[in-house]
């Protein structure tokens, strides 16, 4: 049936706007309006108690450039992203490749590995504190049992940062693994067999057959993981609170602490939040352009 001949295609549906209204109310009141307000707030000072607003122009952005904690938070967020994204993707891919080759009990392994994904970031952080506590922590007990020196998971900056990365990998590997496993199951067996006949080894078959065909999965994971890592909050907040000092401070926790911590500086907090948004936006646009050029080239 042609499009024009469809009764629903004739004229307009009066109910259309009504059906979309609640969702538009949502978008307008609870997403777009706050977004615009955040932009406005970033040029103002908001008094902590009275809520009185005064215009300060670009002052918060000037402060930001000279703020060592902000610089640290940007660096930490970038480092966190640079480690957790490739790390979780590589581990997830490795597990997916192993699972793809092992048929019995595959479902069981898959179930186990993605278990951490369904629990809250708070629960993840609390389990992290149980593992990484410097005095009673499980890892310390294990290290002692193996005759290894204790690690200052809480008082040393790099070790605390490592604890945040490790617990994040614990959660994220399940996600990357599932996506890669789905991607692997779409790779035609015939291609591998043909490769084998041609004398291609395991690595060559992976490099020239499997990896290119996993392109879309890799792309999807890259976008999702980078956005997630930019915006990380719950787990860091609970596990380290950004400390010691600002060793594990990320943009999410710094913006929250600035706006809702003792300082209650909501204007500066909004400006910090906008930085997270701009990073996300720029990255998404770059990825989108990259994927478009790739699609056009293909």
């Amino acid at each position, binding site marked *: 049936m042609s499009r024009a001949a469809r009764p629903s295609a004739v004229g307009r549906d009066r109910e259309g706007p009504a059906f979309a209204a609640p969702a538009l109310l949502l978008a307008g009141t609870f997403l777009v309006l706050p977004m615009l307000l955040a932009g406005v707030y970033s040029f103002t000072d908001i008094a902590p108690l009275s809520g009185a607003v005064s215009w300060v122009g670009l002052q918060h952005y000037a402060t930001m450039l000279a703020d060592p904690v902000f610089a640290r938070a940007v660096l930490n967020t970038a480092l966190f992203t640079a480690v957790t994204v490739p790390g979780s993707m590589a581990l997830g891919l490795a597990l997916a490749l*192993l699972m793809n*080759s*092992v048929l019995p009990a595959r479902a069981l392994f898959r179930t186990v590995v993605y278990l951490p*994904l369904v*629990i809250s970031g708070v629960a993840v*952080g609390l389990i992290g504190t*149980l593992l990484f506590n410097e005095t009673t922590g499980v890892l310390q007990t294990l290290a002692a049992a193996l005759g290894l020196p204790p690690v200052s998971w809480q008082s040393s900056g790099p070790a605390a940062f490592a604890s945040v990365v490790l617990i994040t990998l614990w959660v994220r590997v399940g996600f990357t693994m599932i996506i890669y496993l789905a991607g692997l199951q779409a790779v035609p067996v015939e291609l591998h067999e*043909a490769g084998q006949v041609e004398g291609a080894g395991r690595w060559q078959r992976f490099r020239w057959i499997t990896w290119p065909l996993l392109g879309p999965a890799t792309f999807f994971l890259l976008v999702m993981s980078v956005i997630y890592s930019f915006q990380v909050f719950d787990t860091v907040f609970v596990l380290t609170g950004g400390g010691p000092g600002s060793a594990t401070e990320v943009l999410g926790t710094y913006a929250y602490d600035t706006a809702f911590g003792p300082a209650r500086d909501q204007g500066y907090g909004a400006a910090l939040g906008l930085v997270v948004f701009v990073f996300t936006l720029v990255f998404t646009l770059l990825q989108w352009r990259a994927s478009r050029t790739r699609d056009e080239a293909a």
Partner: protein
Amino acid sequence: MTSPEQLPTPRGRRRPAGIAEPLRAAGQRRRRLGDAGAYLVLLVGAVLTLGPFVLSFMTAFKTPQQFASESSLAPPDPVTGENFARLFAEGGFVSPVVVTAQVVLVVVVGQLVFSIMAAFAFARLRFRGRDALFWLFLATLMVPQVVTVIPLYTMFTAVDARNTFWALVLPFVFGSPYAIFLLREYFRGIPADLIDAARIDGAGTWRILWLIVVPLSRPIIATLVIITVVTHWNNFMWPLIITTGPTWQTITVATAALQSQYNANWTLVMAATTVAMAPLLVVFALFQRHIVSSISLTGFR
């Protein structure tokens, strides 16, 4: 079926039988070794994944005395429920569980009904500005929560609605861009003829939506229910900001507060963590298949 050996070899699927015998034996031996290696690595992965869960459950069932005096790896001895008893008695944990359950219920129902309506409008109804609105909607997916919470806080303060049930629910109850996006994709796959036939029979848009489209979309709706339950059971930043004191604390906020309040009371905190995780692990066990597909669709977090 004939044995594969007798078939011609399409695309070089099999080596000729004669030469292959010794080769295949060696190959099989190697494959078995490889399989054993793969299982071993997977087993290590499974232990590393499950370990933290097991440890937190174990801790929740230990007495504080045992936790203080023995290795943190020791199994609970005696196994005790006192942490849970204390949690619900003096820790005031009944309210957070009830509040969270109410929030999840209202948000799931609201988000589903309104997202279904909007997705249907965006997929199947014709009105001015429809596609522009839809893309605007999608763009809001990129807005990080940390940006919107500050103005939302002042908005709820301005109408004196901070620390209320509605403050917890309103920002989410009218739909979710994710849900609308996923449902719209699904609805577009439903044959137009079905909908047209119902229209010709005189069914209105409302009836078509609930009697034809929704029953046909059960898989995606089930998936969305699970995503929404998990997301809002686990939601932290907004409840943390908008609630003060115990009245409207959700389970995540109460658990995190417990940690700072009863510092180093590990057995109690792990009991709370267990209570927070248990319903999700049950949901997970019941709806595994849907969860797998929902993770691949959205990534959860």
